[in-house]
């Protein structure tokens, strides 16, 4: 029972990070109908940028929490600039091209980002300096650290803010209109290019936050962390119904739970045949199952096939 609660807690922490990344995928997909393959790499750059700043300040007299906050604030503009540039260079010129074209440039962008990160930060794993408080509390025999509590709360707060932004503000209304139909929205006086850029900026800012959270939670960051994280977050977005914001959050949390419970119990379920090193496989199986049985996701509407 204790391990069960522990796995639930781990799943929730993991899930809220997935949810933040998944929001980036889902917002872009909702507006452009494009899978932003490079989003995972933006998360990676965010994590490494934050970590670099944090390492620089780790030996100063500033309190650890403040150092991490500064790192986060440094990562956000870097990622936003990156997201903006990616859209301008790789996606905007191809908006009218066949569907395969932007997908292929997206793969190209993620390879380039990964290699640049490798050249810049090296092949080594970067350890997160132990400056955050390690205090925590026990719930029903399971342990949750204060850092993890902050991660979950911060994720919830950001998601609530995003919902407010999308549903209550002028920008949000323009985003929803563009998602509905870009041409008509343009005719109604919405500057589509600005809206699309704004979407990438917001998504990338979330990616920076998520990246910092991942490296704080696992105390590690490296140049190829983005790929698998991006893939899982994409799975989360599809699970919830791609293009649907609450869906991405739900999908992220669910996927986190499935993964941690799955990895915790797969050994017992298969009589020791498959072990917890199959953790990464779960996301793919979930993805395939969802796409086969409910391609519109849990909360998505059924969309007609676009020719």
């Amino acid at each position, binding site marked *: 029972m204790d391990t069960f609660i522990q796995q639930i807690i781990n799943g929730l922490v993991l899930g809220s990070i997935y949810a933040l990344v998944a929001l980036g995928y889902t917002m872009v997909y909702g507006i452009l109908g494009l899978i932003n393959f490079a989003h995972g790499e933006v998360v990676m750059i965010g994590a490494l940028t934050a970590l670099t700043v944090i390492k620089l300040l780790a030996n100063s007299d500033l309190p650890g929490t403040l150092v991490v906050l500064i790192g986060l604030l440094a990562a956000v503009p870097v990622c936003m600039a990156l997201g903006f540039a990616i859209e301008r260079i790789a996606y905007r*010129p191809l908006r009218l091209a066949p569907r395969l074209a932007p997908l292929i440039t997206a793969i190209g962008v993620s390879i380039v980002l990964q290699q640049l990160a*490798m050249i810049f930060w090296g092949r080594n794993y970067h350890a997160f300096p132990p400056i955050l408080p390690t205090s925590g509390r026990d719930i029903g025999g399971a342990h949750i650290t204060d850092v993890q509590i902050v991660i979950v709360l911060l994720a919830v707060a950001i998601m609530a803010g995003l919902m407010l932004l999308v549903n209550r503000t002028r920008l949000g209304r323009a985003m929803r209109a563009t998602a509905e139909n870009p041409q008509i929205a343009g005719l109604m006086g919405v500057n589509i290019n600005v809206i699309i850029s704004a979407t990438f900026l917001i998504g990338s800012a979330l990616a920076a936050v998520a990246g910092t959270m991942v490296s704080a939670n696992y105390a590690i960051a490296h140049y190829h962390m983005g790929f698998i994280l991006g893939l899982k977050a994409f799975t989360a977005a599809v699970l919830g119904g791609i293009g649907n914001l609450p869906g991405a959050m739900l999908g992220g949390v669910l996927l986190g739970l499935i993964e941690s419970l799955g990895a915790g119990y797969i050994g017992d379920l298969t009589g020791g045949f498959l072990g917890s090193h199959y953790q990464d*496989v779960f996301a793919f199986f979930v993805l395939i199952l969802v796409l086969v049985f409910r391609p519109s996701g849990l909360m998505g509407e059924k969309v007609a096939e676009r020719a």
Partner: protein
Amino acid sequence: MITDRRKALMGMVLIGVALALLPFLVGKGLGNSWVRVLDFALLYVMLALGLNIVVGFAGLLDLGYIAFYAVGAYLYALLASPHFGLHWPVWAVLPLGALVAGLFGVLLGAPTLRLRGDYLAIVTLGFGEIVRIFINNLNAPVNITNGPQGISQIDPVRIAGVPLSKTLEVFGIGFPSVYLYYYLFLALTLLIVFVSIRLEDSRIGRAWVAIREDEIAAKACGIDTRNVKLLAFAMGATFGGVAGGLFAGFQEFVSPESFGLMESIMVLCMVVLGGMGHIPGVILGGLLLAILPEALRHGAVPMQQAAFGRVLLDPESLRMLLFGLALIAVMLYRPAGLWPEARRKREFLAEKAK
């Protein structure tokens, strides 16, 4: 008319002679390690032609193609190595590898082909990773794949009892192992080229193109889109399986490392850069991308040493960086590839004019 045919025949004979002499020229001029590079280039051409059926003809973006290569390679490794003590002959293993890879293709295709293009890309990517993770981990509790260490001491390809791993003397001319494999790979590549060309002009090939252009319209014209797409998947997978088996026999060693996502992307690059759906273009893409990195390895290191006094970028990451940039640049400036098909070129131009 007759002279035309004679000209064509002459051309074919000349190309044939050139291809037959190539390993000797390359081997004498640059050394036998470059013949080895040629062997790998031919393997990549086979893979690229296989993927071209899926991506180029049928327009289904497959990002996990290397999984079929892995299936072919591991099947060969398991059936012809001391690992299980089996030593099946190559002519039994290769067709079986093709068949099993084809089955995997159907297995993957059946549930996923209802999906739209970009979803399909992600699912195939996931499938490729699943295959790799399983190969990496299936060494406990029952040791099937020997895990990350891979399988070594695989039997070399034997034809009529002659192993291709040793120098063969014919009429006083010595054929080193890499030359022998070159001829074998060349023969199979030509076979695959022939099959591809025949497929392209066939009823099925035209059905694939119809689906690529407009799936709904193709369906309305009476094409059984699901089966035809499945066939594309299976056919592409089959080519991958054959290439995989050859790879295992040639290397005499396989490990999960050879079958990562980057390999899938490299093969995709070959198809995209060369010209999706255009067989000569794809062959060009395969050769270019297989040989250029080797040239980089030989050229980039001394050049950097001369310019900066040390190696700033190792050739491997330089190669990937260039691949990534090339993918972006080609899509932006030459979306139909370096050597596009005439029809495809018109389409992309029309798309631009819109």
